[in-house]
């Protein structure tokens, strides 16, 4: 009964979606307020029914109702409750249901919190949002229904893929989808603006919080995915340039560009057409990501060809939305009036530079991901594009962008003074050079490039500090005055400085772990010791433990440093009987900002255990930097002008000074 209820709720959501796709758009055309307002209630009701549908599937999982095919294939009665709940989206059908749930959340969000939006714009935005929703409801109902029943209910499920039985599954996909799908709002706003043929600075102010929120989720989602892969896959890598990872990186790069160009549009009423195009591209890349991951085209072009139903459906959605929106763009964009002139050397110019490099970086990833697929489909020739390709293409672009990063916020709007900014950044630059020198001295010429990377990171962090110091007048005015100014500074200025510093922290982590990481791969017998970077690990022996739905072989190691015991590490291998699979659970030990990473392999014929030990200095900064970036986003999101909302045209002049003070 419950699965049928969920199925029916999804069908109702589709019906509501169809109404919302048409009625508000007609209302907007003929200025019928009641038709336009209809979108609010349908958006909220859509959310209600999709949530109900999702709850029904979750209930089926929690109660282990194996008569539902999806539950049978991806769950097991002995699994801990948390994994029963996360298995809901640990498979194709369920993850698509999560996708539409989040889409509905955002749609309801616009309906509920968009009170200050002009009625026509809001109605159009919700209509476009509903076009996307309907396409995906249909996709689920026609090709990927999670509620299908089995004729005979099996006694036991086939278990969730053991690799996915991890807290990472609870966090990573929902965050990633919040990011992916969140960009749909920017897309809907862009399409609505094109249909209306009108766009102004206020538009950017409405779009920015949604884009910012989506960007924050995506940032965290990617970082969590990276950490999950790091500790699960057993060899301590954190980014693989895998097509699935690239699928999430592309919207992130485009979304980051969108965030920055929206600033120009909001403050200076310039770059309008470009911002609209970026909003379309960002969500298009999210759709392409969904297509790449969900169609099976990545595993092999042939796998896609043998079972193309789902792939072709998503491809059709892709063509419809991307093709349609770009056509609309080509038709309507020339009608939008450009405004806000600026000199090449200016804050606007710097943000254009940022956009150029981010979009080129995004294009690099796009070509690198899709080129092998296209080449194989067209000529049958197979090539591989892996980390060494991105190191020489993506790497330099990002380094150039990071170097330019401290200059942007210091440049004035309209016409900036590059020389003056360079002078103000002198102290930051000097600190960067000192960092280069110190790194060289410590590591003794082991790597030539790494010290410059460290110097670059310190330059950016110090550059953020200089930006804040300049704005508050620190060192120029008395300290209390500076403190008062710091408190009065717009949160978005803090957000910029913090997010930029966060990226520098991530850079530090990547360089540290990649350059000065050490490793030992040895076979150990009990009571033997392995030493690495000043740590000594003694293998105590193997023990068997029972988990809820697996048995584990646990190796115990005592860790010593300088003769003193500092702890125990217990890497293990888990065997899951339901799928006859095993997973490798690495043991991690934090040492300052670095980590000791220990994983075990098979026991060899002589009774020795294969052991892989890594010391990764600074590695935690990779993900900590992402958290700091997200914090920067949150600060920016809490900015007064975004909370207050955009000023309505024709508002009383009395309200203006407060708005300007927040700029």
């Amino acid at each position: 009964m419950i699965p049928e209820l969920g199925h029916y709720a999804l069908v109702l959501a589709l019906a509501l979606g169809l109404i919302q796709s048409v009625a508000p758009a007609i209302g907007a055309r003929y200025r019928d307020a009641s038709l336009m307002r209809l979108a609010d209630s349908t958006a909220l009701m859509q959310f209600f029914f999709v949530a109900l549908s999702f709850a029904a599937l979750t209930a089926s999982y929690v109660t282990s109702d194996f008569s539902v095919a999806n539950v049978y294939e991806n769950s097991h009665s002995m699994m801990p409750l948390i994994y029963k709940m996360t298995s809901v989206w640990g498979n194709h059908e369920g993850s698509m249901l999560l996708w539409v749930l989040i889409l509905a959340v955002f749609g309801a969000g616009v309906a509920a919190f968009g009170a200050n939006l002009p009625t026509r714009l809001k109605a159009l935005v919700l209509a476009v949002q509903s076009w996307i929703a309907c396409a995906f409801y249909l996709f689920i109902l026609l090709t990927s229904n999670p509620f299908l029943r089995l004729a005979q209910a099996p006694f036991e499920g086939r278990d969730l893929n053991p690799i996915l039985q991890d807290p990472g599954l609870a966090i990573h996909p929902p965050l990633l989808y919040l990011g992916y799908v969140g960009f749909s709002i920017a897309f809907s706003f862009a399409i609505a603006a094109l249909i209306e043929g009108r766009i102004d600075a206020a538009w950017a102010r409405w779009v920015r919080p949604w884009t910012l929120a989506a960007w924050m989720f995506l940032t965290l989602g990617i970082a969590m995915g990276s950490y999950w892969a790091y500790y699960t896959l057993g060899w301590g890598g954190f980014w693989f340039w895998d097509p699935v990872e690239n699928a999430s990186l592309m919207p992130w790069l485009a979304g980051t560009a969108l965030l920055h160009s929206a600033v120009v549009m909001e403050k200076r009423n310039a770059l309008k057409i470009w911002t609209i195009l970026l909003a379309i591209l960002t969500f298009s890349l999210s759709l392409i990501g969904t297509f790449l991951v969900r169609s099976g085209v990545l595993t092999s072009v042939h796998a896609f060809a043998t079972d193309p139903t789902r792939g072709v459906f998503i491809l059709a959605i892709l063509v419809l939305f991307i093709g349609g929106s770009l056509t609309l763009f080509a038709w309507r964009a020339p009608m939008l009036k450009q405004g806000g002139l600026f000199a090449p050397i200016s804050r606007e110019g710097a943000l254009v530079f940022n956009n150029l490099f981010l979009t080129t970086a995004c294009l690099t990833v796009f070509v690198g991901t899709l080129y092998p697929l296209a080449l194989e489909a067209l000529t049958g020739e197979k090539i591989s594009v892996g980390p060494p390709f991105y190191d020489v293409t993506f790497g330099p672009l990002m380094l150039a962008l990071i170097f330019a990063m401290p200059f942007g916020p210091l440049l004035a709007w309209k016409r900036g003074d590059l020389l003056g900014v360079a002078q103000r950044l002198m102290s930051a630059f000097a600190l960067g050079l000192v960092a280069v020198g110190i790194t060289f001295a410590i590591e003794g010429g082991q790597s030539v490039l790494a010290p410059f990377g460290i110097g670059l990171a310190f330059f950016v962090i110090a550059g953020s500090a200089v930006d804040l110091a300049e704005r508050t007048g620190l060192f120029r005015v008395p300290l209390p005055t500076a403190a008062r100014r710091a408190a009065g500074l717009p949160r978005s200025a803090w957000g910029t400085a913090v997010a930029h510093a966060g990226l520098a922290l991530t850079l530090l982590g990547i360089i540290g772990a990649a350059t000065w990481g050490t490793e030992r791969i040895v076979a150990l017998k009990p009571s033997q010791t392995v030493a690495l970077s000043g740590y000594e690990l003694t293998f105590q022996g193997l023990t068997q433990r029972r988990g809820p739905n697996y048995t584990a072989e646990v190796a115990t190691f005592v860790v010593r440093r300088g003769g003193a015991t500092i702890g125990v590490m217990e890497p293990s291998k888990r065997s899951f009987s339901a799928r006859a699979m095993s997973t490798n659970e690495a043991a991690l030990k934090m040492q300052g900002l670095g980590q000791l990473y220990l994983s075990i392999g098979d026991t060899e014929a002589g009774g020795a255990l294969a052991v892989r030990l890594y010391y990764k200095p600074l590695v935690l900064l990779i993900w900590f930097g992402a958290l700091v970036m997200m914090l920067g986003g949150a600060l920016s999101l809490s900015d007064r002008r975004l909370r207050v909302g955009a000023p309505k045209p024709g508002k009383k002049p009395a309200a203006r000074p407060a708005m300007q003070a927040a700029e």
Partner: protein
Amino acid sequence: MRRLAFIALVCALLAPGIAAAVQPDEILKDPVLEARARHLSEELRCMVCQNQSIDDSAAPLARDLRLLVRRRLEAGDTDRQVLDFLVARYGDFVLLKPPFKLETLLLWGLPPAALIAGLIALFAMARQRKTANLQPSALTADEQKRLSALVGPGTPEP
């Protein structure tokens, strides 16, 4: 997520009981040769895996390739010779950094081309704006009327 699932699948099918990538018995005595072997391994693809280097992969094929690379290095091959040997055997598919040739022209050429095109477009736009900026637009009839009202009647029209 999908990647993890796929690796799990490969591991299940090909390597019962997760065997981590490089095994202790593969490592060469000579640390310089071993370092070269590891570096080469990162450039080579495990052909049965989804975009994994043989250095990372747990598949038996990857192990065979790792051993092959080490044997060639011990026999005195240069890095280039090892890569050439593998390409001759398995084609360009084995290289994670595709060689620059006609088939990969777009792959290598598009990003720099886009960057240069973007820079040229921006430069052209900046120039266009500059010239547009320099020429003040003529007064409209309405503005002319207001100006005349301010300056007073009898002023000669320009």
